[in-house]
């Protein structure tokens, strides 16, 4: 199967809902962190502070959109759009429910990996074009971190591919009817989780922006809507990553009683909350520690997982 699923209405529906979910996440994250940190969080604008999102957006739109005179202007302007667009197009292959989605690629998983690699350019270019030393350091960190964690990400999901025998995300979900892949692929799941956090540069692996060290890293010089794109891009990345974790390891839309779409949304929400909880709980490792951990722990573990899965699959087939 390699066909478009949705019509224009579907596409627009998914586009609007993913962007609004990502925008809403700004509020969700702030409120949740506040609850976990014995604070109140934004609770003034609208009921429960829900309109905070609107207020934030208005603020961002009307802020001076400053392009530093010392920057590399075309690249500076282009950089934030890359992360926004790649993350958004990533949603095209997500199987929300049977029949709900934009496109059904046979190589859906590879498509996701390709897009997540592309999004790195956004950070590296932003860091380089800002012509600011902190941004440059942030860009350097991003390049090293994301390039290496992509490797582990790719390896970690190969176990899933072996078990299901396909790169098609819908078929991967269907292959989990007898049991979610979280059980046979537990190590794969852990590695994938760490890798997507590193890929989406979320705390505690937010080294490229590391507010306490690099002030804001790659986006130090950004303001207004360009900063907003990085901001929403990050939330898009979280949503996309959670959706993918659910698809690959938690049976996607599968589940009893409730409609499949609801199941998918429910699981994805839990994934997102996990992301936020991790941010609230953990300190940030040092740059070289992160790299060492990746190459010396995650890579061998990923390969071992691959070997064992391969052996088991082979013995079951023969």
């Amino acid at each position, binding site marked *: 199967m390699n066909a478009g699923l949705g019509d224009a209405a579907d596409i627009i529906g998914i586009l609007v809902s993913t962007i609004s979910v990502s925008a809403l996440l700004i509020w969700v994250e702030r409120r949740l*962190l506040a609850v*976990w*940190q*014995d*604070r109140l969080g934004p609770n003034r604008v609208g009921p429960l502070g829900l309109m905070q999102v609107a207020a934030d957006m208005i603020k961002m739109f009307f802020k001076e959109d400053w392009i530093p005179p010392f920057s590399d202007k075309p690249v500076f302007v282009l950089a934030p759009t890359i992360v926004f667009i790649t993350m958004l197009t990533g949603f095209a292959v997500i199987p929300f429910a049977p029949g709900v989605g934009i496109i059904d690629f046979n190589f859906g998983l590879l498509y996701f990996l390709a897009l997540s690699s592309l999004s790195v350019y956004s950070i590296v270019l932003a860091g380089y074009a800002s012509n600011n*030393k*902190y941004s440059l*350091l942030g860009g*350097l*960190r991003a390049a090293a971190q994301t390039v290496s964690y992509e490797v582990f990400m790719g390896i970690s999901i190969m176990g899933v591919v072996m078990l299901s025998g396909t790169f098609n995300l819908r078929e991967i979900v269907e292959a989990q009817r007898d049991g979610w892949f979280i059980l046979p692929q537990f190590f794969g799941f852990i590695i994938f989780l760490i890798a997507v956090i590193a890929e989406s540069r979320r*705390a*505690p692996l*937010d080294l490229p922006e*590391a*507010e*306490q*060290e*690099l*002030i804001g890293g790659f986006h130090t010089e950004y303001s207004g809507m360009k900063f907003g794109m990085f901001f929403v891009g990050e939330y898009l990345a979280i949503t996309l990553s959670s959706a993918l974790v659910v698809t690959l390891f938690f049976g996607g839309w599968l589940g009893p009683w409730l409609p499949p779409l609801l199941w998918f949304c429910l699981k994805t929400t839990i994934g997102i909350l996990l992301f936020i909880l991790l*941010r*609230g*709980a*953990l*300190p*940030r*490792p*040092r*740059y*070289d*520690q992160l790299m060492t951990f990746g190459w010396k722990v995650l890579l061998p573990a990923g390969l071992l997982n691959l070997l064992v899965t391969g052996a088991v699959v082979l013995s079951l087939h023969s």
Partner: protein
Amino acid sequence: MDGNADKIEIPSNTPAIVRELTERLNINDFTVQPTLDGITTVWLPRQNLRATLQHLKFQITSPYLLLFDLTAIDERQRTHRHALSDSAFTVVYHLLSFERNDDIRIKVALNEADLSLPTISDIWPSANWYEREVWDMFGIVFEGHPHLRRILMPPTWQGHPLRKEHYARATEMTAFSLPDERQEIEQDALRFVPEDWGMRRRSEESDFMFLNMGPNHPSVHGAFRIALQLDGEEIIDALPDIGYHHRGAEKMGERQSWHTYIPYTDRVDYLGGSSNNLPYVLAVEQLAGIDVPERAQVIRVMITELYRLASHLLFYGTYAQDVGQMSPIFYMFIDREKVFDILESITGARMHSSYFRIGGVAMDLPQGWDKRIREFVNYLPARLDHYDKLVMQNSILKRRTQGVGAYNTAEAVDWSVTGPGLRATGLAWDYRKARPYSGYENYEFEIPIASHGDCYDRCVVRIEEMRQSVRIIAQCLENMPEGPHKAHHPLTTPPPKARTLHDIETLIQHFLNVSWGPVIPAGESCVTIEATKGLNAYYLISDGGTMSYRTRIRTPSFPHLQMIPMMCRGMMIADLIAILASIDFVMADVDR
């Protein structure tokens, strides 16, 4: 010094250390000055300075290893002065020996025509900044100093502020303006030029990047700049640049009455609140000969320890935050807020309560004061246990801080490190135990130590100190004596008022002491306390007036920052942030 010189006669009342110096160095130019604080004070001529200091540090048994303070006094307008200080300026070296538990103060007189001294920055590395400060403030040249530049004042400053002829108030000057060209000049002067500090721009393999961290940066805890020489993310060298928070606190001491200076002290270590008042009022009381009643002493200890808790809680939270852990600071701020609630109900203010007075405290404890404290004393230890699990046992945090920014006891002492940073290296030396003040000898508590002297251990020591502070507060709670909260002495502030309407003498005394402030008898006194961040001392000189003649504030954070380059060479930027967090400094405490 030739070995076969004549035998020198030593007067019988000479202190043992001076006797030893005279015999060993074969110099008989030592003159001993009697002081109120009991610190052996020795005048010596300039040419003997280095030999004497070297001897005190390297040669005698139980040496004076710590350069506690190095400062100067402008003597030109002083009326009550020591016979030897007929010269214009006096430079004061204050040394401390842990083994002897004793201090010695060396004074060198200089006349105006020849304001120079040999540097001792090769004997004590920490003398580097102190000598720069003395040059900046008094214009005294230290020959052989590697970088004798301004340290607290802007590089373009004219004059030396702590000289008596230098103005102290804006009203003594014409109106200030900053035209564009002037601003350009000022900004240019602040530009960091690596060559000025002997740094190279490139090595054989790579070009170095120079990064200005600060004066505005989220992790430098105030207005503080560190110029970094980087190879990638590795720090080759660092140059701390201070002075952005300088507010002339010492100069103001010469323009405020003894009483009205108390609120200024709160703002020196602004996280330590009234614990800053303590060394100041103790020094004034020593000059005035006031005995503080027991209740006031216990109240002071209790308030000081509460402020120590507030300061350490803030340290703990920012420490975790700087390592990238987001949540702990919020929990610790909630606890700190509880401390401030208690302090507010007792003193009327949260952070800068200025609660201590010459002779006691501002007012008696309010009714029911013990209820909140009792609740808090029962509440905090469990929270600290919880934080141990959350922060200190976290493996990422351990990896970020263990073995990072480590120094041993000898290095710490060489760089004049005091307080928790020194105890983290394993030296159990706490001023409250070694030389108890305000009745600390009556309390049961331990001196927490650690052994590695790294970022992690500095935090461990402070956490344990919090537990000990809770212990001390609990003892204050159970043993609060009855009695007056202020001494009945004419020089206390505000002065006793009860009999003012009964006899004219008391009324006059009260009127004068309130309007002019008390006249404190001439003399010199230096009182040190174990403040939240290390040893804090006020060295006060009274010339028998309503204001101090010279107020020297020895703060712990000043030397601590000087050590940063040595701690962070070869580390990464993230390590530097952890190091800064673990030092626990406050820029007002550095720049004054």
